[in-house]
């Protein structure tokens, strides 16, 4: 298994401080979900964990070693990142996209091997995209396209999978489809998943580990039953709500009442 953690992490865009000295440890083999209001820095944290953003201060550790001191290629064999709304050349087919996932495992002149074909086929069947393998990306619906990207990340064969708002722009059924797929990947293949989600109730339902962010600091983290409270939602989102037990799987469920007055 691969471990991922951050120590004394501070992040900024130019002069604007986004994240202020946080420590974070991603639990292995679990689904961790980062929540917080718009602009609180949750995507920024995810991007820095995937070495897409240089920390201003502090260090990200992948397998105990500073991520920025490892070669990008070695990191890509352990950690896959799916940024928000990625774009590809329009005439690319799903299968071609998937083969890009083999890139970190390849040398300059190496060709596709039968092993590569097996891995791509397996990823496509895991995401139920086999029948769309030869379609171009622009001929897919939003949900299918997102599944195509997830297939590419799977082909990368990493222990860690990071996703930035994977359900954005999808209708509810397709959101659930993506979340179920990710849970399945976690349970069946033991992949560690870290993602940013907007929908609080979905976060509470699918997370093993919930991380709430407020103004560049970690407000509270832990299992949803501990973190997902009336107080947290009031402090982090300025929202009055009541929390009930989800009758389906006993996870906490938030019913909004209105904006907090203070």
């Amino acid at each position, binding site marked *: 298994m691969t471990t991922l953690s951050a120590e004394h992490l501070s992040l900024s865009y130019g002069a604007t401080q986004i994240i202020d000295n946080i420590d974070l440890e991603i639990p292995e083999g679990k689904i961790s979900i980062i929540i917080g209001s718009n602009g609180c820095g949750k995507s920024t944290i995810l991007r820095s964990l995937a070495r897409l953003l240089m920390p201003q201060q502090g260090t990200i550790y992948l397998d105990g070693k500073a991520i920025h001191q490892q070669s990008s290629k070695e990191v890509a064999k352990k950690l896959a990142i799916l940024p928000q709304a990625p774009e590809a050349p329009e005439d690319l087919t799903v299968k071609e996209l998937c083969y*890009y996932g083999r890139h970190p495992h390849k040398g300059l002149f190496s060709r596709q091997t039968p092993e590569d074909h097996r891995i791509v086929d397996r990823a496509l069947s895991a995401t139920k995209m086999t029948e769309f393998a030869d379609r171009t990306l622009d001929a897919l619906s939003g949900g299918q396209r997102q599944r195509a990207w997830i297939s590419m990340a799977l082909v990368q064969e990493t222990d860690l999978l990071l996703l930035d708002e994977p359900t954005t722009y999808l209708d509810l059924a397709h959101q659930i489809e993506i979340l179920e797929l990710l849970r399945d990947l976690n349970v069946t293949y033991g992949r560690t998943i870290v993602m940013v989600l907007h929908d609080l109730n979905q976060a509470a339902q699918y997370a093993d580990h919930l991380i709430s962010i407020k103004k560049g600091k970690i407000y509270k983290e832990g299992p949803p039953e501990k973190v997902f409270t009336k107080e947290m939602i009031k402090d982090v989102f300025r929202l009055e709500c009541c929390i009930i037990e989800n009758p389906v799987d006993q996870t906490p469920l938030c019913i909004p009442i209105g904006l907090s007055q203070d």
Partner: protein
Amino acid sequence: MVGIALGAICQAGIEYFMVKFPDDVNTTLLWLTGSLWGRGWDQVLFLLPCLVLVPVLFALTSKMDVLSLGDDIATGLGERSKLLRYILLSVSVILIGVCVAAVGSIGFIGLIAPILPGEW
């Protein structure tokens, strides 16, 4: 914007030489239009050392493909996007630079060139 500014500066340079050396204006005009006329083995020998860079570009093709998915994805797939961009840009500038120096700017090649390799 940067392209227009750079173009204007280079244009100014060319015009300076035309005004300064009016006797050679004919050669300048020929070079500006771009022509293979009167070009021979001298120019080929001058271009030869740069051929070393062509295999370099071929070796980088798979990396170029990855870069077409955007910098974030390329980094995620293990490339150092910024460095790669600089290398590719430098190699292209050198190759195009020596070609233009030899035969001038033959029009429309810039339009055709990016499409040709894409067809393969």
